[in-house]
């Protein structure tokens, strides 16, 4: 066994020598592998960067958070009917469903009057009316100032918490706390600035303004009740299904839905969204794996081709080595190691290039920064080495089986 180790070390030494003796040719030989590995690493690093970021987002939300939204089936929608969740639904859930906390209503302001203005600057950012519990559910904490509290909500105070991006969009100079911004024509006093969260899918997550729920409701006018979203936290994760069922029954009763009709609302967990996302990432990775498999196969055939040429070219050398006492196994190992070494080098270069490309893509598109997971590194090296082994065996066997005297006579 130590004999084999010795042979592998010597084989690696001579492989390195012969690879670097023809540096440029070696590079071209392994180009297929380089491109294959680089493209997989580039895409994986971007997708994983995404995925890590999104997982973090969902983690922030908490896994036992439920989101209840209105849902209008397609048929009804065509008939002009719109399902709705109301403040009443919120109160029902808050006071009648046990085992939940931080029940939070949110209402979005839409439309042409949903603009924020400040000293002549205006911004159409996301305008959300919500309760003070919003910060716990979404882990959006104020970096400066404070979040609004129960009393702000009760007295319908005109106070606002700004996402950090608004500051630059509205060109707010100096300390923003205590200044006033106008939302659809009404003045709101800035009481807090939220922590920065960055971009997701190129979407700025810091471009929002949060207002107390009752204030927003009043602002929207009492003519028609707004459609709201209700988020809440389930205290015991094991009780999740019971809680969902409870909410479902309650809302169906509230909405007077008869047996047999569909729900006009949806209850989703953050986990479900995460699962869906994971599925997308998983299938993307699979498709990618297929493409890369093919490109590595092509790369491997390229390597086999060049190795075969190289064996022919070095026939005399092989003859000399055999005359000096190299066994078949010595020669086989030497060429096999050369092929594997070449592929691993290609894999390494591909890894570096791929990560570089991934980082560049992330930077240019404002996506979360690229990360290469350990499994991708192990896999690309494993694959590259495997390709070297598989496609190196034929040239290596050809070299090993050369007859010493024929090889020495080869011109």
């Amino acid at each position, binding site marked *: 066994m130590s004999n084999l180790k010795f042979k592998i070390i010597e084989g690696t030494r001579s492989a390195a*020598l012969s690879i670097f003796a023809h540096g440029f040719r070696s590079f071209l030989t392994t180009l297929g592998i380089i491109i294959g590995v680089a493209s997989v690493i580039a895409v994986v690093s971007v997708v994983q960067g995404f995925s890590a970021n999104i997982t973090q987002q969902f983690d922030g939300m908490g896994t036992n958070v439920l989101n209840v939204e209105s849902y209008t089936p397609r048929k009804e929608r065509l008939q002009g009917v719109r399902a709705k969740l109301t403040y009443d639904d919120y109160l029902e859930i808050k006071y009648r469903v046990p085992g939940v906390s931080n029940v939070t209503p949110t209402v979005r302001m839409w439309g042409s009057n949903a603009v924020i203005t400040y000293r002549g600057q205006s911004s159409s950012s996301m305008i959300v009316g919500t309760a003070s519990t919003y910060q716990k559910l979404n882990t959006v904490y104020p970096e400066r100032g404070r979040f609004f509290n129960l009393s702000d909500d009760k007295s319908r105070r005109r106070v606002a918490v700004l996402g950090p991006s608004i500051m630059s969009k509205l060109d707010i100079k100096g300390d923003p706390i205590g200044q006033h911004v106008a939302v659809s024509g009404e003045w709101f006093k800035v009481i807090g600035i939220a922590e920065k969260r960055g971009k997701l899918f190129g979407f700025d997550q810091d471009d929002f303004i949060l207002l107390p729920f009752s204030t927003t409701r009043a602002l929207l006018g009492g003519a028609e009740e707004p459609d709201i979203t209700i988020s809440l936290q389930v205290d015991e994760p094991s009780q999740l299904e019971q809680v969902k069922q409870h909410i479902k029954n309650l809302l169906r009763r509230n909405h007077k839905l008869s047996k047999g009709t569909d729900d006009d609302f949806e209850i989703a967990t953050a986990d479900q969204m995460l699962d869906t996302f994971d599925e997308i990432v998983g299938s993307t990775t699979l498709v990618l794996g297929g493409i890369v498999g093919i490109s590595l196969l092509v790369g491997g055939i390229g390597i086999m081709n060049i190795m075969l040429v190289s064996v022919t070219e070095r026939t005399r050398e092989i003859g*000399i080595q055999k*005359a000096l006492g190299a*066994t078949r196994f010595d020669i086989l190992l030497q060429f096999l190691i050369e092929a594997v070494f070449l592929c691993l080098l290609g894999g390494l270069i591909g890894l570096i290039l791929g990560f570089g490309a991934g980082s560049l893509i992330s930077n240019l598109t404002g996506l979360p920064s690229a990360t290469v997971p350990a499994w991708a590194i192990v896999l690309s090296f494993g694959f590259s080495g495997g390709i070297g082994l598989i496609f190196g065996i034929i040239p290596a066997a050809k070299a090993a089986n050369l007859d010493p005297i024929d090889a*020495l006579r080869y011109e």
Partner: protein
Amino acid sequence: MSKQTIIELRGIAKHYMMGSEGFYALDGIDLDIYLNDYMAVVGSSGSGKSTLMNLLGCLDLPTAGEYKLKGTDVATLDETSLAGIRNREIGFIFQNFNLLPRATALQNVMQPLIYRGIALAERKQRAQDALAMVGLQDRMTHVPNQLSGGQRQRVAIARALVTEPAILLADEPTGNLDSSTTVEIMALFDQLHSDGQTLIVVTHEQEIAERCHRVITLKDGRLMSDQANKVPVKPLVSGVAAHV
């Protein structure tokens, strides 16, 4: 004291098929080679000298006959054992040197020791010693095309000697060299012989054959004569000079 036999050839033949016709490059060779023999193989071109050397060096196998090396019938050995014999028992020197073109002189001489499983440090030491013995201690990092023909052949000799083989086989070792380099190489062979080395040298130069203590002559693949040189004392330098 009786002479110790290293090689026994009995009825050795090498048959080639050339199209439909058969052809004997060697035909019924019986030969014994003894320890510390210094033997020349002469004969006209195509007489089978190289064929014989390749068989002796286990680079090739006979089509008939028996070859015993140190008592072992070579025909019974597998490819790996033959490689072992080439590595341990044989030092082969070729007319065209056959150095590894990309390797330095030192690496060339170290090469056979790799197949013997000798560690780097010792390999290096032994290769340096062998190169020093042939007077190339200051050319170790040169690659073959940075060396003269004589220097290349001396690297090849160092490489053949570094494994301390039982026999040194040289197939027209000076065939590509000028006369003064030839003198140097032959002087080296004389020295090796007097140190106890067994040598077989193929040559077509009379002067070289006369340096050897035994001369065999081949003709059309047959052994024509096997003579002892009684007085191999003629100074080589004047001999070669006369030849030139």
